[in-house]
């Protein structure tokens, strides 16, 4: 059930913290409080943050594995099919399906497709590219890619309450709090 006091002109509430330690502790409190639509922002990944926010492990590994299999099949299929079926020639008296010669190509294609999986899979999971993000409405937030450590809790969160949420963040040690306009 939605909070009555929620205003639509606000995207979320931005709180800045002091250094990685501060952010980590705050994250623990916020997640303990049960918020879901929130995230911590830092210029670099912080060790232990995933646990602090208790995030599920990334599923990227499975995506990459699938691509790897695909690449392997593509490589093996291409080499064997072309050399022994589509374009079979007596070359140096070697068998048409001269498997050892096909290892390098198969291997490279496996790696290539796995790499595609890793990169584009990551973009997909991070829903990138996304050039317009409400977060960018906050001047202060720019420092998230420099030396700022922030928590943003979205107004869409069921538990969101303008004052309560702000208090929570203040208790968590926020050195600055501001709303981010939608």
């Amino acid at each position: 059930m939605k909070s009555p006091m929620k205003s639509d002109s606000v995207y979320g509430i931005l709180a800045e913290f002091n250094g990685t330690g501060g952010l980590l502790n705050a994250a623990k409190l916020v997640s303990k409080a049960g918020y879901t639509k929130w995230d911590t922002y830092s210029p670099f990944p912080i060790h232990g943050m995933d646990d602090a926010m208790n995030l599920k492990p990334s599923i990227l590994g499975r995506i990459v594995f699938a691509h790897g299999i695909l690449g392997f099949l593509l490589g093996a299929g291409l080499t064997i099919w072309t050399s022994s079926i589509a374009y079979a020639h007596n070359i140096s008296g070697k068998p048409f399906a001269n498997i050892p010669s096909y290892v390098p190509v198969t291997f490279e294609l496996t790696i290539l497709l796995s790499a595609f999986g890793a990169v584009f899979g990551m973009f997909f999971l991070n829903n990138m590219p996304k050039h317009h993000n409400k977060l960018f409405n906050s001047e202060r937030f720019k420092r998230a890619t420099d030396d700022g450590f922030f928590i943003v809790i979205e107004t869409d969160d069921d538990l969101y309450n303008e004052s309560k949420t702000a208090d929570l963040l203040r208790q968590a040690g926020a050195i600055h709090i501001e709303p981010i306009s939608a």
Partner: protein
Amino acid sequence: MSTAQPNTYWRSLNELSHNDEYKRFVDREFQANATELTDGYSRRNFLQIMGASIALAGFAACRKPIQKILPYSRQPEFVVAGNPLFYATAIPFRGAVTGLVVQTHEGRPTKVEGNELHPDSLGGTNVLQQATILDLYDPDRSRNILLGGESKTVAEFSAFCAEFFTSGKRVAFLSEATSSQTVSRIRRSLSSRFANSTWVTYEPFGEENALLGTQTVFGSKLRAIPQYDKANVVVSFDNDFMSSGPDSVRAAKLFAKRKKVMSTQDDMNRLYVVESNYSLTGSNAEHRVRVKSSEVAQVAFALAAAVGADGFSGYSNAHSSHDILNQMAADLRAQNGAAVVVAGDDQPVSVHAAVAAINVAIGSVGNGVTYAALPFTDSANQNEAFTKLISDLKAGSYDALVMVGTNPVYTAPADVDVKGALSAVGTVVHLSTHVDETSAALPATGWHVNRAHFLEAWGDGLSYTGAESVIQPLIQPLFGGLSDIEVLNLIATGTFTAGHDLVKTTWGTADWREVLHDGLRKGTSFRAEAARTASGAGQAVRSLADGAASVDGIEIVFKPDSKIYDGRFANNGWLMELPDPITKITWDNVALMSPATAGQFGVEYPRSSILRAPADEEPMVSITSNGNTVELAIWVVPGHADDSITVYTGYGRTHSGRVGSGQGVDVHPLRTSGSPLFTSGTVTKSSNTYSIASTQDHHSMEGRPLIREATLVAYKANPTFAPDLVKVPGPIDDNGQAISLFNEQTFPEREPQWGMTIDLNACTGCGVCTIACQAENNIPVIGKNEVRRGREMHWIRVDRYFSGDVNGNPQIVHQPIPCMHCELAPCEQVCPVAATTHSDDGLNQMTYNRCIGTRYCANNCPFKVRRFNFFNYPKTFLTEGTDPEVVQMAMNPDVTVRFRGVIEKCTYCVQRLSRAKIESKRETNSVKPKDGSVKTACQQACPSDAIYFGDLTDSNSTVVQTKRNERNYLLLEELNIRPRTSYMAKLRNPNEATA
């Protein structure tokens, strides 16, 4: 093994000096007999051939032959477009004709082969004959009759002849040697019409001395006709009879018959050669005596004395005491007639006289050699007649001079003022294929008549052995042009008669069709003369012998080039680019000398540094003789006689054409009528250097078992010495092959499986296979600079290695290397685009259209037989010259012309194989042609039948027999690439007495 390997092969010429230290290094680093491959062999080291400029020059093939012919609106008889026709004809050269069969495509001669019916060809050819096609299509040939440079019509010339050559005119005829019966016939009417006329035969390297020699002994000019097939022992005094002389094809054929050792039961002949320069024949000798050319006579006399020749009783000289001489004599006497002694045309009369006396003494007349009178020679000494003629002309004793062929301005000795004679006589007629030096020197009133190539005009002649042959034209004259008989007849009668009628008049009509079909009148030949020693011959010869003097100090020896002869073939790109059989030099002539002689000119030898800078050039000597000086590059030939320098004529032409002009150095200025064969001279080191394009610069086999050789005795003791030389390690599969890591592809039953065997014992190394291949497969000529870079395009090359003592008398071995068509070809697997694959009939195919030119296959070929088109040689050719279409006509329409950026190589003449398979399929419904019905170009051309080719699935085929022969071995067998081309080991049959 040691018996199988009599010679310790020495390293490359240039670092033999490093031999010992190097060997020490080797022994320290790698213990000897660390491998079974190296036993009994020395180890290898290094020498390089360099290229410098990347400029592009010379001839090349063309993209598509454009044929200037009319469509067959009315189909001529027998002609099926695309199928070649073959006609018999004969090629005249130096007064003898050799029978040919010429292949024509849609009326366009494309390839010459030997005429098997012809006793002087027996199906073989030599390099000059193979290359004559390119002479026919030489765009630089003269295209008009010229009077003082003005072009005239045939009618105008006929009018002139009719008007000028009135009876009684004092006409001098200067002709190249010719045996034409029609010419002889016309000469009779000439001499009757022009009472005060004279006819002189002029050949810079003619057989005059030989004839005068026999004249001394037998009282009349007789031609010695060696019967090599009957001779167990052959002694050659400076006679390079295997090279490109008028008798070379027959000689090679007959000589090879005696070298075909197919089992330990067979015997073979023995060859002694006495010479200064290392000749092709010398390289095939069992025993080679290296003496100065001017000393050869002394050896001949000593031999004459040793065999007790008439007039030599009590004679002896410095050579008489030599063991080899007496062994030679004993060997000759022991054959009771089954032996022959021959002397080179480049030797003085005395030698030929002595040789004739020897042949008589050893009883070989009518056995090892026959003597024949020539119907067309004059009794007078033609060498003297020539000099006399020139002075008479200057004296104004003649109204006109008619030159049939010949190029005296270029070829005449320096002291014979031909130019002066030409201007003195005024009215001159010069029949010549090119506007050459002589035509260019004609006075304003001199006529140059463009001569027809023999494939364009009717003619006839007698072969070296006297077979009456007819020269049948294959094509209308490309540039107009008259034949010698037409011109002579015109002068004789004042009216023009077609050559065909002239020849037919001579020959009569009885067997005309048969003659044309066979190319000769069957069974005709010179009558063998009894050749009895004339009275007083002995004293005559003896006086010659006593009078003979050899050149003190350094002698300069003049030899006709083995490819362009006296320069008459200088404009032939195929010949120019054909590597010399011994030096492997292309496009140039050099000063050939021994290591010791080179040392006199400060040429360090072997050179101290084994490195050759890219721009490295050869040092030069300047040779001064008779007041003239020429500069030539020094080229060291181990085994050349000391204090002797051999120079080849025919180079340095000024009016030869695009190819020949300016190539090499003209050495004629050094020759005088007094000493046309060898002369003394002062030789000094020049400060200049000169770049030489040689296709093989490394002369040692590095102790590798490439050419396997044994004496006949050693072979009989151990028949399988050759295959035994290399033991391939590792297990053997069911087919006796070394095992592979994979299951090899198999070949379908229905298909023939092509294979080749090359008999190194029969092969003389003449290089005709290279030219035949070039003619058959449209191989481009790329020019000197490209050859220097090492980019020669020949599909089959002849490797040449020296063995033995570099400073002494080393031996030479030759090995033709075509593509081996390996069953497990290393070249195929590395091509990224599968442009080279294996066919069902076992060919290693090259797909030009698919090739992108990575050159990986060439790198990975252990025999380095793959050739790369570094530039667009064809395009260069197409855009150069007056009208390239002419040369395009020389191309074989059955063979693709390759373009820039693709690899090419020997195909076993796949175009011939396919044609044969189609024929066979039509006749027998099997694609396996019957044995002998298909020949590769190299095989067909080879005058000594050293190449066998055929279907390996036909167990009775000759090629299978040779593969089963115990001398048969595979080159680089240890690589397990399974070449389809194999070799039969070389044998030598040295005189045991010398051992």
